[in-house]
């Protein structure tokens, strides 16, 4: 049995006209109800739901293939190794990386960024060197650099955002200087949905020989990512935000850079020879993959990528844009509702506040109506500080969401305002 046969295939007229009703049937969890109402899942920026093919792939692996990889001569181990390495190739194609050894399987975006900080950064940054990030970053693209700064004396510089939640490119140009050793920015903001001008950022940084890391945790599920066209040096992603399992993700990095980087963690699988005097390291990508990885997760991640590709990233992007436009057209109906983050280029994320109602109360009242949103700082406290708010309520869209579900969100918001309004 091949789990990918469960992936969708269909004919469509216009971009974004995806057969949502049919696709929804691929996601078993969407059949459940919450507080007696059909679930409306709008917490997609936190994690996506998984299609049956992904769930099946994990199950299939444990029922038929399970063995450790890269270290057995028996059939299961060889099959597991092949499936895992095929998954790496699927991810290479998904990101359009030039070489398969440029794909390092890791736990996710957080681990990928920490790897770059601790291997690339720690081996070359010195006191006074500067790392440039933006005010939009997720904590996982802030903390690894702060830790590195403590270790090396390097300094973190932050590109500000404007009131719309847009990266201020002119400020970036001003901050990009002779001391800048790395630019690390989000491709798409999880808190506000803003899409950063990454092509311009990369071109400007490269003009000064500064490498660029993109945090692609959000972006990869909202549109095509072509790391060669982008020409980024590092790209970090998480499987679970791409309709795949948790605990698996990857770092893409240019081969020449990876080769020059020292190993990060030591252990099995990352060596060629070991002796007490000196060990030699395995070639890429294994040099950065110490220990038994999430094998089932990697295999199922590839199934998720196939699924997403079949639906089409351009379609997903257009579909989510339509959901966002519909939501925006209804904002005025809700008394005191204000959208935070109104960037011209935006992914399907609606972050908002309602005057006099804390986001947590919005979250609880919506949950009661079966609508799952996120309330809080979204692991981006500096963004909240920038707007002078403790947090926002955030509805974020995925390929399986419908216009009717957006309407249920707004029905729910009317209940919120009614309850708090008197």
């Amino acid at each position: 049995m091949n789990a990918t046969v469960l992936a969708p295939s269909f004919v469509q007229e216009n971009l974004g006209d995806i057969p949502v009703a049919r696709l929804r049937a691929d996601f078993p969890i969407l059949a459940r109800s919450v507080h007696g109402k059909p679930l409306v899942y709008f917490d997609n920026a936190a994690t996506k739901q998984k299609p049956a093919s992904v769930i099946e792939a994990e199950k299939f692996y444990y029922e038929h293939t399970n063995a450790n990889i890269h270290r057995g001569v028996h059939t299961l181990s060889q099959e597991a190794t092949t499936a895992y390495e095929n998954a790496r190739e699927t991810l290479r194609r998904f990101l359009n990386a030039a070489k398969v050894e440029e794909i390092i399987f890791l736990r996710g975006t957080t681990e990928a960024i920490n790897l770059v900080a601790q291997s690339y950064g720690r081996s070359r940054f010195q006191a006074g060197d500067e790392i440039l990030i933006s005010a939009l970053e997720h904590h996982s693209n802030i903390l690894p650099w702060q830790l590195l700064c403590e270790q090396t004396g390097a300094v973190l510089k932050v590109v500000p955002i404007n009131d719309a939640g847009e990266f201020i490119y002119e400020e970036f140009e001003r901050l990009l200087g002779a001391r800048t050793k790395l630019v690390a920015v989000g491709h798409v903001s999880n808190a506000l949905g803003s899409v950063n001008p990454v092509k311009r950022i990369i071109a400007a940084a490269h003009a000064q020989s500064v490498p660029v890391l993109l945090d692609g945790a959000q972006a990869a599920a909202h549109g095509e990512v072509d790391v060669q066209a982008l020409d980024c040096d590092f790209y970090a992603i998480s499987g679970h935000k791409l309709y795949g399992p948790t605990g698996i993700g990857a770092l893409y990095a240019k081969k020449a850079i990876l080769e020059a980087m020292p190993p990060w963690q030591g252990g099995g699988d990352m060596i060629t020879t070991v002796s007490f005097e000196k060990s030699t390291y395995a070639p890429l990508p294994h040099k950065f993959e110490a220990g038994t990885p999430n094998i089932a997760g990697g295999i199922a991640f590839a199934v998720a990528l196939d699924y997403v590709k079949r639906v089409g990233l351009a379609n997903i992007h257009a579909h989510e844009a339509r959901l966002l436009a519909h939501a925006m057209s209804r904002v005025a109906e809700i008394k005191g509702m204000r959208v935070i983050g109104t960037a011209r280029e935006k992914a399907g994320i609606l972050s908002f506040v309602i005057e006099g109602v804390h986001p947590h109360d919005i979250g609880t009242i919506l949950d009661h109506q079966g609508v799952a949103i996120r309330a809080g700082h979204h692991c981006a406290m500096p963004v909240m500080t920038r707007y002078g708010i403790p947090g926002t309520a955030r509805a974020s869209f995925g390929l399986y969401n419908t216009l009717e579900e957006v309407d249920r969100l707004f029905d729910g918001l009317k209940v919120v305002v009614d309850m708090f309004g008197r």
Partner: protein
Amino acid sequence: MSDLRELYQEVIFDHNRHPRNFGVLEHPTKVAHGHNPLCGDQLTLYLTVRDGVVVEVSFQGQGCAISTASASLMTEAVKGKPLAEVEQLFAAFHTMLTEDPTEPRSDLGKLEVFEGVREYPARVKCATLAWHTLHNAVLGTDETAKTE
């Protein structure tokens, strides 16, 4: 929506909209901070304790309806009480929200409007933030009370 009304009782809305004892005390004998990192709720509690009795209490901060109302009702409940009784209230409040509802506990009067919060595990911390902060203040720890 009836069970939602058990969480958001009218008293809670009232105290959220018009929190009592809201503001800074002039010469407090104790100041304590509370923070719920999960939702960003911040709270500062000001106390004037004389001869082991809470003679004045106020709070400032921002939070959800549950945490604001809880802080407001708490200040009303503890004002004029000896510290030993305040600690008993803290324990009873905590029991009401976190333990088996059939467990015996002392009567909490007005504070029982928070009983419904027990059904919302994600919100228990909102209701207990002010109380944890008070508990720290009474014990004299300088640490910021955290719900995490």
